[in-house]
């Protein structure tokens, strides 16, 4: 186009001279074109949902004029049957919201809102300078911390871990908030987590859904449960809350929160007393069964179990009888029931119940919790080695579940402690989602430099010095696996990245390039691959071989393929425990300070001054701080509420729809009360969610109480999210 | 209900215009009791008010410029019928302007036709709202209330006009008192019918009773009833000033009442 200079037609204009001197000329954003784009030119590509969700759906995206027109599920995946969930259907709204973070920006004073747009080059330079400065002062990169978790499970998003590894030894937020106690339990019992293919639940005769709410959190499995039910299986839900899952089941049993272990042991005792257990299986496949059976005989009675759980003896008896008689019977162990100070012990008791009744290794059976076996990926974006001569010796781990407190401790000025000077936040909104929100703010204040990579402006971005705009899955490549079903999806870009957004691997490559320009050899992250090459590198040869594929291109034909061999987990009887057998008695468990047997551990005591339990399960229209902020979702729901049983409400003088204050010793929230008969009379339920432009954040009420297990498999104990106690008053 | 203020304006003003015209039919065309100036002025008033009503109703539409399409469903829609009847009414009222100076049959025919279409309009308006999805409205009270609005405002309007034209006063105090009394009775009826109806009707009844506007209207009714009743036997009160006061009181009362009507309707 050429720049416009001072033109004849504007002779005598004083301003033009000044304007021409500023920036680029007229027409420089455009180029000449001859074509006029034809409407209706559409193509379909495979995408995949990277959210932290059981269902990890393969998506078919219809693209026209370079823009997303509509999305549906991928029919090639039998797990989803070509359907998405309510959250998935909002993606077009998500990608094209004008409120996305669009450009790298820096803030003059955290929380001031004084943002300046900068180029990626400037952003990389800022980060690189800070890294070099820290390295110079401390001799290592340990004062640099990464706090990343489950905002996206695209395996290429692990490029952010790779970024930090490629600059040296750093500090990492280690662990996972939501499921580690159960992972440890299954690690002690089976050797690791492996669940039967959820699609095999269709073969089950009896399904115990224990502390899970698939109607809201795994809707495609809910459909499988429904089909199993229509096939004649009996579906029983054990939960403190009468969830939508319970509502669609044959039977619902309200259990007193945090006493699940007692119910499992009571059922096992009944089965043992009535000789319904599978002695052959135990002899052949397990160790420590005699000690376990002795424990049942000597320590457990049904009356005791009934007293603990609040479930009548005859119901426990019937449940045990039905469970033992149905062949096969499966248990779905949810994540809700292990978010307690005795949650890991409870999962061990349930595992033991499944094992002693002969339901492990059986098609349509199992004690199904989660799995990572289908993650046949190379983590090539993540696995990076530090530059030669890096100081610090090894990465330093701090507990993700108590991150702010640990940061404050390191930054307390103690000369023996290496402080945290720089924080990189990715795939998380810790200020809104971590417990003890007020402590989070203090921890951020104690850190010199905070970089946050996100798609949305949230509380954490507001407390950052630098924000990096991240592309959505529709704008980049990806490889996605589930921690529940066995499908592996490929994700190809549907559209060009909007604005200046980049995915984590592109950021890693950009930073690496900059750092090596400034100080050669200071970063090991490779910079010479395309995103497609990175995606191709993620898919393991094992996976390709098992599917008879020669390259990732074969996977692009269907978008998804299933890892086979898991119809019945542990069917081969080869367990990954030290003994190679199922371990009723686990020395490893004992070595982590727990009882070697799956014994009952008392629930956390209810404080007298805060007698009402607060349950904060996942919300159906969102996933942590995602989705509920979109205008489409707001059109069906946009106000937080607390569910309260009418009897409790009456005692507190709270009418349906009243504004109430829920409070405890660390904070409070104010919201509307909703009467419902579906919650216990001694608890209230608030669903955790992020509502845009609203103050509500339930984490003001949640204390960072650790669960009993988690440190074996994930490095850190989980969080006892459901051992929280509050008071409630009408406002 | 949303956007109801335009509907309040339309229904009350159209009923006022129709009531006024029917009054002309009786007092002017049939009985010849009005001076040409009064009947002319009143007829102009009727036309102007009618047109204002139509303009107000257009604001209720998403696409006011396509209002003509509203004529298309005469076969089924009471709204179409209302539009057509009222349009005809206004045309006749305009014709009446030209024939009002003449005497005899032609004037009577025009006035009679106008009266007929006026009544048809009020009937159609009422039928629009007499629908099962609005239980509290779905009975004869809607029609009664709309008709009475026309009946009470029309003569008072003409009397008020006659005040301005310095015409001789025509006493309607018995009639007016009776109609206001009837309005009070109908309002009691509306509330009691609602309370005896479905959940939604009960909710409507409750909303009416708790609406401050309703109670203001009630006070205005009682006041107007007392003044009008007093004027039956007190000839000092038989004058156009009193009629004007009554007209203003009842016009305000009907506006408030109609606001309450729309605001309290509870949908199924």
């Amino acid at each position, binding site marked *: 186009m050429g720049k416009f200079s001072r033109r004849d037609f504007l002779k005598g204009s004083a301003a033009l001279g000044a304007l021409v001197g500023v920036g680029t000329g007229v027409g420089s954003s455009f180029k000449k074109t001859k074509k006029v784009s034809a409407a209706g030119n559409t193509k379909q590509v495979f995408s995949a949902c990277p959210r932290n969700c059981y269902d990890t759906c393969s998506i078919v995206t219809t693209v026209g004029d370079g823009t997303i027109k509509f*999305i*549906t599920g991928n029919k090639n995946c039998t797990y989803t049957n070509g*359907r*998405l*969930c*309510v959250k998935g*259907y909002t993606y077009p*709204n998500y990608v094209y919201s004008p409120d996305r973070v669009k450009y790298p920006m820096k803030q003059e004073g955290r929380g001031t809102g004084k943002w300046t747009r900068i180029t990626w080059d400037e952003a990389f330079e800022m980060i690189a300078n800070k890294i070099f400065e820290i390295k110079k002062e401390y001799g290592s990169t340990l004062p640099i911390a990464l706090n990343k978790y489950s905002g996206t499970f695209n395996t290429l998003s692990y490029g952010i871990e790779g970024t930090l590894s490629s600059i040296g030894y750093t500090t990492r937020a280690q662990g996972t908030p939501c499921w580690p106690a159960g992972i440890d339990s299954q690690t002690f019992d089976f050797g690791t987590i492996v669940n039967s293919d959820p699609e095999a639940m269709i073969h089950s005769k009896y399904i115990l859904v224990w502390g899970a709410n698939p*109607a*809201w959190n795994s*809707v*495609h499995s*809910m*459909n499988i449960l*429904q089909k199993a039910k229509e096939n004649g299986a009996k579906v029983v839900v054990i939960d403190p809350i*009468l*969830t*939508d*899952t*319970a*509502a*669609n089941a*044959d*039977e*619902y*049993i*309200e*259990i*007193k929160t945090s006493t699940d272990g007692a119910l499992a042991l009571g059922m096992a005792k009944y089965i043992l007393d009535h000789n319904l257990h599978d002695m052959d299986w135990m002899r052949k496949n397990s160790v420590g069964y005699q000690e376990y059976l002795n424990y049942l005989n000597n320590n457990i009675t049904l009356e005791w179990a009934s007293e603990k759980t*609040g*479930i009548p003896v005859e119901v426990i008896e019937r449940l045990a009888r039905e469970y033992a008689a149905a062949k096969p019977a499966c248990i779905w162990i949810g994540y809700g029931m292990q978010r307690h100070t005795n949650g890991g012990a409870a999962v061990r008791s349930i595992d033991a119940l499944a094992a002693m009744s002969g339901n492990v290794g059986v098609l349509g059976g199992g004690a199904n919790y989660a799995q990572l076996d289908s993650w046949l990926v190379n983590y090539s974006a993540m696995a990076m080695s530090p530059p030669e001569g890096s100081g610090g010796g090894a990465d330093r781990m701090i507990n993700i579940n108590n991150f702010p407190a640990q940061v404050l401790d390191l930054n307390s000025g103690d000369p023996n402690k290496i402080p945290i000077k720089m924080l990189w936040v990715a795939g998380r909104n810790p200020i809104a989602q971590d417990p003890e929100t007020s402590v989070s703010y203090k921890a951020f204040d104690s850190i010199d430099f905070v970089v946050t990579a996100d798609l949305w402006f949230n509380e954490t971005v507001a407390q950052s010095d630098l924000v990096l705009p991240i592309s959505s899955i529709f704008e980049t490549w990806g490889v996605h696996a589930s921690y529940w079903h066995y499908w592996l999806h490929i994700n190809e870009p549907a559209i060009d990245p909007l604005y200046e957004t980049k995915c984590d691997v592109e950021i890693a490559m950009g930073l690496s390039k900059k750092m090596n320009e400034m100080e050669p050899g200071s970063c090991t992250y490779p910079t010479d691959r395309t995103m497609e090459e990175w995606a191709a590198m993620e898919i393991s040869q094992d996976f390709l071989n098992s599917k008879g594929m020669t390259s990732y291109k074969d996977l692009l034909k269907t978008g998804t393929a299933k890892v086979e061999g898991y119809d019945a987990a542990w069917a081969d009887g080869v367990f990954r425990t030290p003994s190679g057998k199922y371990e009723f008695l686990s020395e490893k468990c004992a070595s982590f300070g727990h009882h070697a047997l799956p014994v009952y551990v008392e629930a956390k005591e209810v404080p007298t001054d805060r007698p009402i339990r607060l349950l904060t399960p996942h919300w*159906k*229209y969102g996933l942590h701080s995602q989705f509920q902020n979109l205008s489409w979702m707001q*059109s069906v729901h946009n106000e937080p509420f607390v569910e309260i049983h009418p009897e409790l409400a009456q005692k507190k003088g709270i009418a349906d729809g009243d504004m109430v204050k829920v409070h405890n010793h660390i904070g409070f929230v104010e919201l509307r009360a909703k009467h419902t008969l*579906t919650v*216990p*009379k001694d608890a209230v339920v608030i669903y955790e969610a992020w509502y845009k432009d609203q103050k509500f954040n339930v984490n003001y009420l949640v204390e960072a109480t650790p669960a009993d297990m988690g440190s074996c498999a994930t490095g850190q104990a989980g969080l006892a999210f459901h051992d929280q106690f509050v008071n409630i008053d009408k406002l | 209900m*949303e*956007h109801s203020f335009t509907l309040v304006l339309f229904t009350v003003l159209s009923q006022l215009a129709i009531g006024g015209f029917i009054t002309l039919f009786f007092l002017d065309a049939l009985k010849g009791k009005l001076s040409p100036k009064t009947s002319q002025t009143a007829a102009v008033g009727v036309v102007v008010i009618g047109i204002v009503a139509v303009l107000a109703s257009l604001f209720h*539409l*998403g*696409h*006011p410029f*396509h*209002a003509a*399409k*509203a004529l*298309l*469903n005469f076969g*089924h*829609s*009471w*709204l*179409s019928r209302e539009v057509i009847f009222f349009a005809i009414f206004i045309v006749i009222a305009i014709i009446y302007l030209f024939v009002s100076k003449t005497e005899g049959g032609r004037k009577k025919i025009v006035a009679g036709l106008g009266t007929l279409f006026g009544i048809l309009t009020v009937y159609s308006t009422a039928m629009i*709202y007499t*629908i*099962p*999805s609005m239980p509290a409205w779905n009975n004869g009270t809607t029609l009664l209330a709309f008709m009475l609005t026309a009946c009470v405002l029309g003569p008072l309007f003409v009397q008020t006009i006659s005040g301005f034209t310095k015409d001789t006063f025509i006493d309607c105090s018995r009639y007016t008192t009776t109609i206001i009394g009837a309005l009070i009775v109908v309002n009691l009826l509306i509330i009691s019918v609602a309370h005896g109806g479905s959940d939604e009707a009960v909710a409507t009844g409750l909303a009416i009773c708790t609406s401050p506007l309703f109670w203001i209207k009630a006070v205005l009714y009682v006041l107007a009833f007392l003044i009008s009743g007093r004027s039956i036997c007190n000839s000092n009160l038989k004058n156009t000033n009193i009629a004007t006061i009554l007209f203003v009181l009842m016009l305000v009362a009907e506006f408030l009442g109609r606001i309450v009507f729309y605001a309290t309707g509870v*949908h*199924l």
Partner: protein
Amino acid sequence: MANQKYGFIISMERCIGCNACTISCKSYYNLNPSINRRFVREVEETLVGEAKRCHISTACNHCEEPGCAKACPTGAYTKLDNGIVKHNQDRCIGCKMCATACPYGVPQFDPVKKKMDKCSLCVELLEVGEETICMASCPMEAIQVVDLNETETIGLVDRVNGFVNPDITKSTTLFKLPDATHTVRRDL
């Protein structure tokens, strides 16, 4: 075409009140945020047997005697031979009478187009043998669009307590009521 009579069958046994139908429909038809063509409502917890969460998902009920068609002054609504109550937006002048007249409050006012909007039963998809968006999107397969002339309706009901009486306009939507769930609740 003439012998078909399309209508919805909603399995409340399957519906979990997730609103996937509402959002996918909104996405496909690019509806204004303030309006929806489907409505998911919570119904009485004690609808069947002991208390539990119950939902109902409905759209336009494509009534036999549509109140909207009777109320509409422009004749924008037509009951087609195939059972669909069609709203012709070109005719609509946005008077909102249909919204008042519909016992289910189905037609909604689109504040941008300034016209009414409602479910068309995805007629253009049905005509080419495809499923409606809601039917194809429901992760629980709770929504079916069927030819009511050809479908066994034993065990289905036309009314749900808390949802409006179908007698007024002869709604054609049928429901499979949820089974009662046996519940064991704690005594406190």
